[in-house]
């Protein structure tokens, strides 16, 4: 019934807009729009952003009115949806996918009075801020667990697109995996989609058939976990806790929590203190957290927890040297760590990853 209500609400909003034009009265609620790359029902990336939107609604009550558009294609369609939202009188827009970036910058120029926020992006302007989570910290923990549990020393990794965010995740995983288990390797399969359950399942099947006994994914649906469950191998949830789909296969999940960030930013915009910032929050800040460590021996779970604490305490950096490239050459020397700029532009694989990068 939630779906029906949302449809009716957005229909009503559309009707009222065409009838009365952009909102202007002083006591009008502050209006926030969200655009999602997938459906909010993906139980992954877009779902978690929508949970953040709901948290904003719950926090501000009548003061804030939110709306969302889901399944927005990355490309020309993005600009159309953004323009529609902005010209309908929305005060603030959260665009929640990397591929929305260029359109956000274009539209921000055309609508200088609207606050734009772009998730996982790198391009900013006077009215465009960027924000993301340091999900790679979670990937390091996954690498630790996988390195201890794999018996075939082959990890299957389902990757979406060759963007720095995804490449960084693969590398963070591989570095810790090899540290724990120097014989283990990561097989990367690109599916070129964020969301296609059937293709994600197909990829998981292929990786398991080729000998992988742990599946990692950087796509949005729980399909790969279901395959892992059925085939009796392990897997990790992505973006949200997917244990319901794989009660015996999910080891843990990297969960995104956007609630606090969204509440803070909406508050800042309403107070007039909003600025074009670049936020990159971590496990410590609560933007990223790990789901329960399940289906593994106690000592492995304890190691994972200890690593999590070390990362939070700043004693461990996921990208601390020595780090070697695929061809064996040293990228980061012992005792050094990669800076944020290198992390944000990462376009190479580290040692331990097999497969090539599309370009």
């Amino acid at each position, binding site marked *: 019934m939630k779906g029906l209500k949302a449809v009716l609400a957005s229909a009503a909003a559309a009707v009222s807009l065409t009838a009365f034009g952009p909102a202007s009265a002083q006591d009008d609620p502050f209006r926030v729009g969200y655009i999602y790359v997938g459906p909010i029902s993906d139980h992954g990336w877009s779902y978690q952003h929508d949970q953040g939107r709901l948290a904003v609604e719950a926090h501000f009550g009548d003061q804030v009115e939110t709306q969302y558009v889901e399944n927005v294609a990355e490309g020309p369609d993005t600009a159309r949806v953004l323009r529609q939202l902005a010209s309908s009188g929305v005060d603030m827009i959260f665009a929640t996918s990397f591929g929305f970036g260029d359109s956000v910058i274009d539209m921000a120029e055309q609508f200088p009075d609207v606050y734009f926020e772009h998730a996982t992006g790198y391009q900013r302007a006077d009215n465009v801020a960027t924000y993301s989570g340091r999900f790679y910290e979670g990937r390091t923990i996954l690498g630790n667990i996988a390195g201890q549990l794999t018996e075939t020393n082959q990890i299957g990794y389902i990757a979406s697109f060759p963007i720095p965010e995804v490449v960084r995740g693969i590398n963070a995983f591989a570095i810790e995996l090899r540290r724990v288990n120097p014989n283990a390797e990561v097989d990367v399969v690109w599916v070129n989609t964020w969301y296609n359950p059937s293709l994600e399942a197909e990829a998981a099947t292929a990786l398991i058939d080729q000998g992988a006994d742990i599946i990692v994914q950087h796509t949005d649906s729980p399909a790969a976990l279901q395959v892992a469950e*059925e085939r009796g191998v392990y897997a990790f949830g992505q973006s949200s806790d997917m244990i319901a789909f794989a009660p015996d296969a999910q080891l843990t999940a990297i969960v995104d929590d956007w609630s606090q960030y969204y509440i803070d930013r909406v508050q800042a915009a309403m107070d007039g203190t909003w600025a074009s910032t670049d936020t990159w929050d971590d496990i410590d800040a609560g933007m990223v957290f790990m789901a329960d460590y399940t289906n593994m021996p106690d000592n492995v779970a304890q190691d994972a927890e200890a690593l999590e604490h070390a990362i939070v305490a700043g004693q461990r950096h996921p990208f601390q040297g020595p780090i070697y490239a695929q061809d064996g050459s040293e990228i980061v020397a012992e005792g050094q760590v990669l800076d944020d700029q290198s992390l944000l532009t990462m376009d190479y694989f580290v040692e331990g990853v097999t497969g090539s990068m599309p370009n």
Partner: protein
Amino acid sequence: MSGLFEFLISDLLTVSFAVAVIGAATPLLLAATGELIVERSGVLNLGVEGMMLAGALAGFAASQELSYAVGIPAAALAGALLALIFAFFSQTLLTNQVATGLALTIFGIGITKLIGEPYTGTPLEPMAPLFSESLQQIPVIGPIVFGHDPFVYLSIVGILGTWYFLFRTRAGLILRAVGEDHSSAHALGCHVVRIRYAAILAGGAFAGLGGAYMSMVKTPQWNEGMTAGSGWIALALIVFATWRPMRLWLGAYLFGALLVLQLRIQGTGVSVGVTYFLTMVPYLATIVVLVIMSWDKVALRRHAPASIGKIFKPAS
């Protein structure tokens, strides 16, 4: 390149590869079988994707609420129900078939999203294979022949049955006659509209089953838009097969094999460009078949149903 050669013998010629191909091909085969019947009767229904989604949702919901035994017929029924809307518009109200079919797809995506909301994020126990454990353990033949769920057998019975019906029965002959020249068929006393209604409903039922395979077997979950374009590939497949059931069967497995291959070949270290190319092959092949067919006007007439997409308005 040695990696590639090794891959060809160690990974491609394996039982698991064959099983994966069958799994990838089955929804395409089911949906395309239905659309073949529809197109052979002279109707073009572009609503395959929408009908697949209706079947996916109905199959999932009925399986979760009641049982798999109810889920399968429910999926067929839901597909047929959506097809009935198309039939009413295109055959009774004589609307343009291309526009109506496209509208049906859009409608199917929307209505399943709306109705399916409570089912998203809820899991479903995977369906058990049809045959007993002991049969499945026969080397090679076991997993390939006996290892599947009912949908796989249904798809094979479906395509063989369709072939038999179209080319070995009188009713099938009449259906093809209607598809070739509806005016002549009408003059001979065939009930063109009634036959097309039946064909459209059958097509919807098959599409519904194709969709249900995805929500009940492949990834036992319901999610909006989860068929992710399979309906369009099924439509391409029919052209690729030049409207022949046996070529359709072969084509479905070929398209399925390409899909599985592009994922598996990535592990061998070949350039990713190769995998992109493999993803394109089904569409390229369809275009090549179209070009070759169009070359020869006689061949085109022999293959494509001549009345396809044309509106039939009996002279009263």
